[in-house]
């Protein structure tokens, strides 16, 4: 730490009075700006009604969705009307995904069972009485089943246990649930991981480890005599009915097509239009003005609105999305390129002209090389943002991955599929982003952005 002598300090203060003792007006700028921002935040707090929104937030739903996005649940259920079936173990309670063998945490024989819920204790069903032992409570929680509605015979009712006239519903934690109604006993337990991600529940390959699948791929013994093991593995994966890998890959391709084709056509079409709209190329003021307003119009009407119009004309699908992106971006590129052409150095064009070049040659060799880096870098830059736009307008009817995403969200059950699609979209965008900056560096050299 260097100490400045008092005299020196005074000398500096005399030399730069504005730095040491700033004028009142400048001193006031920071507090006034801060106050204005705070006032604006207060206005927003009131106008967006944040107070009541904060009260409405459903954290329980959010945590359930979150849980569902990375975990799957297994139901163990017993129906009083079908005692011969005993306790049925199934994935998500679906009739098509019933396990033929009980997992090791479920032991059952006829109407009696003992089910281990891991950290949430265990459940025992015996002689029509469901008793649940919670690790934090000394006594079992017991529910008597049989004629009519179940009756809760326990003494205390913690907040996670709900007793109503028709059912007893216990949710000791997010990971398990015990429900007893007039018609059935149902116990649900969550496990982390995406179930059946690789192969369907009833696929011959389900439950096999990675090593087993690889060795199957190279073994001569065919699982399915109709096709080789490799093609069987691929088709079981690709046409997985729950995860729909093939459909999702096709949807991703559609989104990518919208972004790439829209951007490319826009760039190629905007280039000659930009030359015609540049002051130093086109002397005709009226046509220049018209083109400029056309660019503003194309750009100002957002690609959402263009997609509405194109969907009416071409129907739902990526073709409409491609055109929406292409229209908006023609406006954006036209504006950017024409500004770049106007800012281009005149000397090169004049030099080319002096050699007796035709007007076309003059712009081709005198101006075009100057704006080429901007042309490429802007197109690559917009490619990334258009991939995101294509997802968004896809959700609004142009198809592709956006629509798939919306479909899985609408069911409000397939959160694992939603997570999967979101992850794929983000990976795609990051890939395009990296590819475009790599290409930019490769094509125009240097670190330009």
């Amino acid at each position: 730490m260097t100490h400045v002598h008092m005299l020196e300090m005074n000398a500096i203060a005399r030399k730069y009075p504005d730095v040491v003792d700033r004028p009142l007006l400048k001193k006031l700028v920071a507090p006034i700006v801060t106050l204005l921002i705070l006032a604006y935040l207060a206005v927003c707090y009131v106008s967006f009604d944040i107070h009541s929104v904060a009260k409405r937030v459903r954290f329980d739903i959010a945590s359930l969705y979150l849980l569902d996005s990375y975990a799957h649940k297994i139901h163990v259920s017993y129906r009083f009307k079908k005692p011969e079936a005993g306790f049925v173990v199934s994935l998500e309670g679906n009739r098509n995904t019933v396990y033929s063998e009980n997992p090791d945490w479920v032991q059952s024989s006829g109407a009696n069972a003992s089910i281990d819920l891991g950290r949430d204790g265990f459940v025992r069903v015996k002689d029509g009485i469901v008793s649940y032992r919670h690790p934090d409570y000394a006594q079992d929680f017991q529910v008597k089943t049989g004629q009519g509605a179940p009756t809760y015979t326990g003494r205390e009712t913690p907040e996670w246990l709900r007793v109503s006239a028709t059912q007893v519903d216990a949710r000791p934690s997010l990971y398990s649930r015990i429900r007893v109604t007039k018609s059935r006993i149902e116990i649900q337990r969550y496990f982390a991981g995406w179930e059946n991600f690789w192969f369907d529940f009833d696929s011959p390959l389900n439950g096999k480890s990675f090593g087993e699948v690889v060795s199957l791929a190279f073994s001569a013994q065919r699982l399915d005599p109709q096709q080789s093991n490799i093609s069987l593995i691929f088709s079981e994966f690709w046409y997985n009915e729950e995860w729909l890998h093939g459909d999702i890959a096709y949807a991703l391709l559609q989104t990518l097509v919208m972004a790439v084709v829209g951007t490319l056509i826009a760039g190629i079409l905007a280039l000659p239009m930009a030359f015609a709209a540049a002051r130093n190329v086109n002397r005709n003021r009226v046509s220049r003005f018209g083109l400029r307003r056309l660019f503003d119009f194309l750009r100002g009407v957002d690609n959402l609105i263009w997609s509405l119009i194109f969907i009416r004309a071409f129907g739902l699908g990526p073709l409409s999305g491609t055109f929406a992106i292409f229209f908006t971006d023609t406006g954006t590129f036209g504006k950017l390129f024409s500004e770049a052409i106007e800012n281009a150095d005149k000397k090169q064009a004049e030099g080319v002209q002096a050699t007796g070049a035709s007007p076309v040659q003059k712009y081709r060799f005198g101006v075009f090389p100057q704006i080429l880096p901007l042309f490429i870098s802007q197109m690559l830059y917009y490619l990334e943002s258009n991939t995101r736009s294509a997802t968004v307008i896809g959700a609004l009817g142009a198809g592709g991955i956006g629509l798939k995403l919306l479909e899985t969200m609408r069911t409000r059950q397939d959160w694992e599929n939603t997570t999967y699609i979101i992850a794929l979209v983000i990976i795609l965008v990051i890939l395009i982003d990296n590819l475009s900056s790599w290409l930019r560096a490769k094509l125009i050299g240097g670190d330009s952005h």
Partner: protein
Amino acid sequence: MAALHSLAANPKLAQLEQNFQRLSRQRALYTFILIAVVLLSISGGLVVAADANSGSFFSGLSRFFDYPVELVRGAYDAGLWRLFSLCWHYLPYLIETINIALLATLIAFFLGGALSFLASRNLVSQRILVFCMRRVMDVTRAFPEMVIALLLVLIIGPSPVAAVMAVCFHSIGALAKQFSETNENADMRAVEGIASVGGNWLQQMRYGILPQVLPNFFSYCLLRLEVNVRASAILGFVGAGGLGAELKMVVDWNYGADILVIIFMLVTAISLIDYISAAVRRTFIGDAATL
């Protein structure tokens, strides 16, 4: 001609000539490959798109003007006075949309600004911290606003707050990236000067870097505001309030006059904001306002 012949006779010049020929052939080949790739991806892409589309291109071409004409006819039937009153009716929604964008940009400016200092290689010595911050930025930037808005609408119900949070989340990543690039181009001598008199890291940033980069920060922020006004208008379509929600409603009901009025208001507002922000940016960073 004779001079040219004698030049070609010179072995060094002949070598030069050969190299030039080789390079120009290589260049022509690259250009050819580039054009071929572009043409292939356009035509292949159009085939894929047309294949997946529910209607075809050529049958749609004749119908292209049907919808705009329908809208204009609806507006014509409504009459001028009705159009004015519709403008007045939708004005609060437009203000809400702009407010969503403004609030989101404001919050993203502060959070993205803070993040950007931790993500600049020249300002932070811990490489691992810079790496992590950059990956955080990449992921927040890659999230389409629509996805976050959809999730939030399910959790907090239809409200503009969902749009603010969605737009803000994406903007933090986008702004932080541009900000950190600005930071990395800043002159480090000011930082060294402050470090030499014993300023700590925060003081170095506040007095050494911030005054240099703030004009650029503002400029990027204004550009982001333009983008965000568009984004918040779109987010209304999934129930996040603002003019977009009204537009979705009237599109579903097919109210020609209302649709046209809302589109007109959106386009006017977006163009106006573009124009103002371009003018303000010019005062911040001079003529290079396009960045």
